[in-house]
C-alpha cells in the first residue's frame, strides 16, 4: 500500500529557531531528481555519516525516493566520502554534495539536515546516532547498532529525550515474506508457538581477538583520521586492513558471529513473538565456538534457539528465521520466493496478511520508506530504538554467555544479569576520551 504524499509544507520541517544561523536553500524541483513530482517544500534533507559499502547500498535505496534530497557526507576516510559524493552528484547531475571530515563540525554546521544515514561500522553506530540525535537529527543507523547493553539504553533514552525518529537497519522487518511469518505467529495460525529459531552467521566465532595487527605508518589525517576512526575504542596502532573491513573478529569493533546476523534475526523473532520490548531471560551455554544450538528463553515461555544450520536442516537462505507451534511452522530467509510452510494451504492468505498488516500499521513494505514516512509523521518506525536495544541486548547476553562459558539469567526489567556481578561487568565499556554516551 503506497503511503500517500501530503501537502505538508517544507517550512513545517524546518526544525530550527531564530537562534540558528544557516538558512536552507530552496531550489526549484526541476533541478532535483528525475521527476520533480514532489514539491521541494516536502523534501527531507538527508546527510551521511561514515557511508561505505553497506551505506552506499542504503543510499541507493534512499536517493530514488521523491521526497529525499541528499546534501552532504562526513567520513574520516577521504576516499569513502569522495565515492559517496560521486554517487550523489551523478544522481542529481551537479557537484553540490559536500564532504566533511569531522563529525562534530559536520553536526554543528549542517543545521539544515533533517536526517542522517549512519553507517560507520559497529563500533561507532550507537555513539554517532546519539550525537546526531542530540544535534536534532533523525537517524537511520546500520546494524548491529550497539556494542553493549549500556550503549543501547543510551540510544533509547536519547531518542526519547529529544523526540527523534530512529530506525535500525534490520530491513527484513519491512519485507513481505518476513512480515507474513510474523503475522502468522501473531494471529495464532501456528497454534501455541513454543520455539523460534534464529540464524547466526556461519563464519567467525563468538570469541574475538584482542591482538593488534602489525603497525603501519599513519596516513595523513586528511586521508584517514585514525584517532577518529577508533573513536571510543581502545587505542591500537594503525593498520589499513582495519579500515577495509578487517575490523571484523576483533572484540573492540565487532559483535561476533552472533551479532552479525543476530542483529537481524533476533529482532525479527522478538518482534514476531511479541517480545520486542524485552530480552531473553535465560541463556544456556553450549560448548562450541559459535553459540550454535544455544537455547535462550523468554518470559513468555518461548525458546529461541541460535542456529548456524551448516547442513541446511532448517534454512536455505541467509538471515533466516523459523517459528514452530502446535499447529504448524513457517520459515523464511533471504532468497525465498515464498516462506516455507508446514502446510501449503497456509499460503492461501499470504497477500491478505501482508495487506492487512500494512493497513493496520500504516507501514510501507520498504524499510527506507517507513523511516521517511515516520520522519514526517513522527510515529515510531518498525525497527525503533526499543526494538533495536532489546534484540541487541539478547545478542550481547548470548555473547557474554559464550565468553563466560556458563549459563546466564537476565532481568529485562532491571536490564542486568541476576545476582551476577561478573556478567554485569560486560554491560558497558569505558569510552576513550573525549567520547561519552
Amino acid at each position, binding site marked *: 500500500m503506497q503511503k500517500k504524499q501530503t501537502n505538508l509544507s517544507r517550512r513545517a520541517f524546518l526544525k530550527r529557531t531564530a537562534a540558528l544561523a544557516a538558512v536552507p536553500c530552496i531550489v526549484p524541483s526541476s533541478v532535483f531528481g528525475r521527476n520533480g513530482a514532489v514539491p521541494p517544500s516536502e523534501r527531507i534533507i538527508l546527510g551521511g555519516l561514515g557511508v561505505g559499502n553497506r551505506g552506499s547500498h542504503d543510499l541507493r535505496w534512499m536517493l530514488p525516493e521523491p521526497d529525499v534530497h541528499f546534501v552532504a557526507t562526513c567520513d574520516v576516510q577521504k576516499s569513502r566520502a569522495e565515492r559517496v559524493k560521486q554517487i550523489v552528484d551523478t544522481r542529481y547531475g551537479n557537484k553540490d554534495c559536500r564532504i566533511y571530515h569531522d563529525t562534530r563540525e559536520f553536526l554543528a554546521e549542517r543545521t539544515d539536515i533533517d536526517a542522517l544515514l549512519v553507517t560507520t561500522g559497529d563500533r561507532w553506530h550507537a555513539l554517532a546516532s546519539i550525537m546526531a540525535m542530540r544535534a536534532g537529527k533523525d537517524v537511520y543507523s546500520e546494524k548491529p547498532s550497539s556494542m553493549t547493553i549500556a550503549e543501547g539504553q543510551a540510544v533509547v533514552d536519547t531518542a526519547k529525550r529529544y523526540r527523534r525518529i530512529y530506525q535500525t537497519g534490520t530491513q527484513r522487518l519491512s519485507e513481505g515474506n518476513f512480515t507474513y511469518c510474523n503475522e502468522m505467529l501473531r494471529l495464532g495460525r501456528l497454534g501455541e508457538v513454543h520455539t523460534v529459531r534464529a540464524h547466526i552467521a556461519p563464519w567467525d566465532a563468538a570469541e574475538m581477538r584482542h591482538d593488534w595487527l602489525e603497525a603501519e605508518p599513519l596516513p595523513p589525517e586528511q586521508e584517514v583520521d585514525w584517532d577518529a576512526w577508533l573513536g571510543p575504542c581502545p587505542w591500537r596502532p594503525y593498520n589499513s586492513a582495519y579500515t577495509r573491513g578487517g575490523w571484523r573478529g576483533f572484540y573492540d569493533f565487532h559483535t561476533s558471529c552472533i551479532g552479525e546476523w543476530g542483529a537481524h534475526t533476533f529482532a525479527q523473532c522478538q518482534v514476531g513473538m511479541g517480545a520486542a520490548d524485552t530480552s531473553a531471560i535465560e541463556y544456556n551455554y553450549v560448548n562450541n565456538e559459535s553459540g550454535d544450538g544455544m537455547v535462550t528463553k523468554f518470559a513468555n515461555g518461548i525458546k529461541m534457539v541460535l542456529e548456524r544450520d551448516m547442513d541446511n536442516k532448517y534454512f536455505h537462505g541467509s538471515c533466516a528465521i523459523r517459528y514452530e507451534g502446535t499447529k504448524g511452522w513457517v520459515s523464511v530467509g533471504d532468497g525465498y520466493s515464498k516462506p516455507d510452510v508446514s502446510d501449503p494451504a497456509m499460503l492461501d492468505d499470504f497477500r491478505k496478511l501482508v495487506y492487512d498488516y500494512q493497513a493496520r500499521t*500504516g507501514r510501507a513494505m520498504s524499510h527506507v520508506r517507513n523511516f521517511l514516512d515516520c520522519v514526517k509523521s*513522527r510515529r515510531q518506525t518498525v525497527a525503533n530504538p526499543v526494538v533495536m536495544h532489546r534484540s541487541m541486548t539478547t545478542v550481547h547476553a548470548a555473547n557474554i554467555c559464550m565468553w563466560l562459558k556458563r549459563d546466564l539469567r537476565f532481568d529485562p526489567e532491571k536490564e542486568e544479569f541476576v545476582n551476577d556481578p561478573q556478567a554485569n561487568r560486560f554491560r558497558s565499556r569505558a569510552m576513550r576520551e573525549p567520547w561519552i554516551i
Partner: protein
Amino acid sequence: MTRRQTGSAVVRCVSRGLYNNVGWGSPHHNSTDGLKADPTKKGNLTMSKSRIQIIMIVALILAGTVRLSAQTVPPKSDEDKLIAVIQSNDATHKEKVDACRGLALIGTKKAVAPLAALLGDEKLSHMARYALEPIKDPAVDEALREALGKVKGKPLVGVIGSIGVRRDAQAVQPLLSILMNNQAPPEAMGMAVRALGQIGTTEAAQVLKTSLDHAPAEGMPDVYEGLFRCAERFAAEGNRSAAIDIYDTLLAQNASHQVRGGALRGAILTHGKSAKGGLALLKKHLQNDDYIMFSAACQTALEMPDTEVTQALTTALNNLPADNKILVIWTLGKRGDPAAIPALSAAANDGEKSVRIAAIEAMPQIGHASAVPVLTDLLGDKDSEISQAAQQALAAIPSEAADAAVMAMLNNTQTEPRLTALELIGRRRMYDSVPALLKVAAGPDAKVRPAALKRVGELGGPGEFPELLDLLMQYESRQDLDAAEQALSAVCTKTDNPASYSSRLTSRMSDATPAQKSALLRVLGVIGGAKALEAVRDAMDDSNAQVRDTAVRVLCSWKTSDAAPNLLALAKNSSDSARKTAALRGYINLIRNDELSTEKKLEMSRQAAALIERNEEKKLLLGALSTIPSKEALSMAMAHLDEPATRDEASFAAVAISEKIVEQNPKQVADALQKVLKATDNRNVRRRARQTLDKARR
C-alpha cells in the same frame, strides 16, 4: 591454540625474548621494550631480569587459559599478576593494555590504586579507566575524585567522564570547581557538565541551572543534556515537581528545536493527564503556530493512551490548517482509540482530499467496527481516489460488522456495489461467503457471475465441485464458461487426487454443448490422469470441429508422458500444420518429465529431432536436452552450436549436460566446452563452462 601449543610458544617466547601473537601476549610493533644491547655480543640483545619476570608472568597466565582471548575471564587469583604487569617498568604498552583488560573482568579494590596511578598517563589513562569503571567499590570513586586535582589534558576529560558514568554524588563540588576554573580546558568543562547531568542529584541540577546563565553558546547543549538527565532521574524517583521545574526552565530557553520539543514532551508526561497539568499543556500546544511545538505535542500524545487525550486531539482537529490536521489524524490512527472514529469520519467526509484520505487510512489502524458505515458510504464517492482508499480501508477492518456490510453489498440490486463486494470478499478471504457466491453465480446478473465464480475458486474447496459442475452445464456464454472452468480447476486441485474427478466430468460430456464440452476438456487437462486422457483422445474424433480443436490443444498441453504416443502420431501425421507444430511442441515438452528414464528421453529426442523444421522447435528441444545426462544428448546439442539462431540455446544445453556428465566423460566434455567458449559471449554460460572445463581437465 591448545595448551601444549601454548606451552611450546611460551618456551619460544622466553628463549627469544619476544612474544608470539597470541591475544594478550601480542607484541607492539617493533617493540624492544626491556631488551638491552650487550656491547660484548654483536647483533644480540640481552634481557633485563624484570623483563624475564614479565615474560614468565604473562606466559604463565597464557598457559593457564584454554582459549587465548581476553574476554575469557582469568581466574581471580591472577589479579596480583596483572597488577604486577601494570606496575612494571619493563612491561610493554600492549602488555599493560591487556593487563587492564583482565583487571576489568576480575579487578577488586586491590587493583584500584595501581590503576589510579595510570590515570595521568596519556597512553594508559583510558585503559586504566576501562578497568576501574566496572569495579563496584567506592575506592574507585575516591581515586577518580582525587585524580581530578592531579591529571590534565585528555586524561582529565576521561576521568570526568568516568565519574559521570559512575554517578558519584560526592563529585559534584569538585566538578563545580572545574566549571568555576577559568583555566580549565573547554572539553573538561563540557564533560563536567555532562557528568553532573549523569549524577542527577538535586545539587547537580542546581549547578546546571546556574550554568544556564554562564555557559558559552557552544557549551549550552551539554547543559541542556545534563538538565534533561536530572529531570528524567527526578521523574523516575517520583520527584515530579523537581522534574517539571527543569522542563519548564528548558521550555523557557531560546534553544534548538530538539531541546524545546523534548522539554515539552517531558513536561506533559511528567504532569500526567491531569486537566490542569499535562492535558492543558497538550491542548495549548496543539494550537501552537510553531510547527515544532505542535508536532512535539502530537508526538507526545502517542505516549498517552488516555481517552481525554483522544478528545483533546479530536477537538483540535476542528481548528487546524490542513497540514496540521493530517498530523493529528496520523496520531489518532496510531493511538488506536475507537473514540476517535466519529471525528475521523467527519474528516473523511469533507474537506481537502489529502485530509480525507489520511482520515480514511487511519480507520483500519484503529480497526473498530464503528468505522464500517462511513467507509461503506465512501465506497460510492464520486472521487475514485476516495472510493479506492475506502475500499482498501474496509478490506482491512477485522470485524464481523465489516463482513456483514460486504455481504449486504453483495445483495444489492446494483451491479457496481456487487462487484465491489466481490473484490472485498476476495481481499478479506471471506470463506463463509461461498454459498452466497454460488447463488450469485447462478443468478441473472451476467456482469457479476464471472467474478463470483472466481471467488468460489479462490475460497471454495472440493465440496463445491458438484454445484460448480452443474453451473457449468447451465452456462452458454464464453465468459461464464471460462469462469466456471477456472473455478472447477481450482477446487479440483485442492485435493490430493484431482484425477478422481475425471469420471464425474466425463459423465456429463454427452449432454454438453460444444462450448461446454470444450470447457470440460480443459478441466480434464488440468486434473490429468488416465481416464481424463482417454476422454481427451476420444474427443479428438468428436463430430464438432470446436471440440476436436479443443481436444488437440488440451492434448498438446498434457503434463504426463502417457500422452506422448498420441502427440507423436499427431506431429507426424496431421494435415494441419498448426496442429503438427503444437503436437510436436507438446511432445518435446514431455521430454523434461522426471519420471522418464534417460534412454526414453533420448529416444523421444531422436524422434522429435527428425520432425523439427523450425528454429523455435530446435530451441525447445535444446532446452529439453539440457535435462538429459548423456553423451548422446551432448552431441545432439553440439550439433546446433554453429547455427547463429540456436547458438545460445545450444551453448546453455551443452554446459548443463556437461555439468552432469563431466566425471564420466571428461574428454568429450572438454572438447565440447572449448567449442562453447569460442562460440558464446554469455557471461554466465562462459563462467559455468570454465568451471566444468577445469573439472574435466583435472
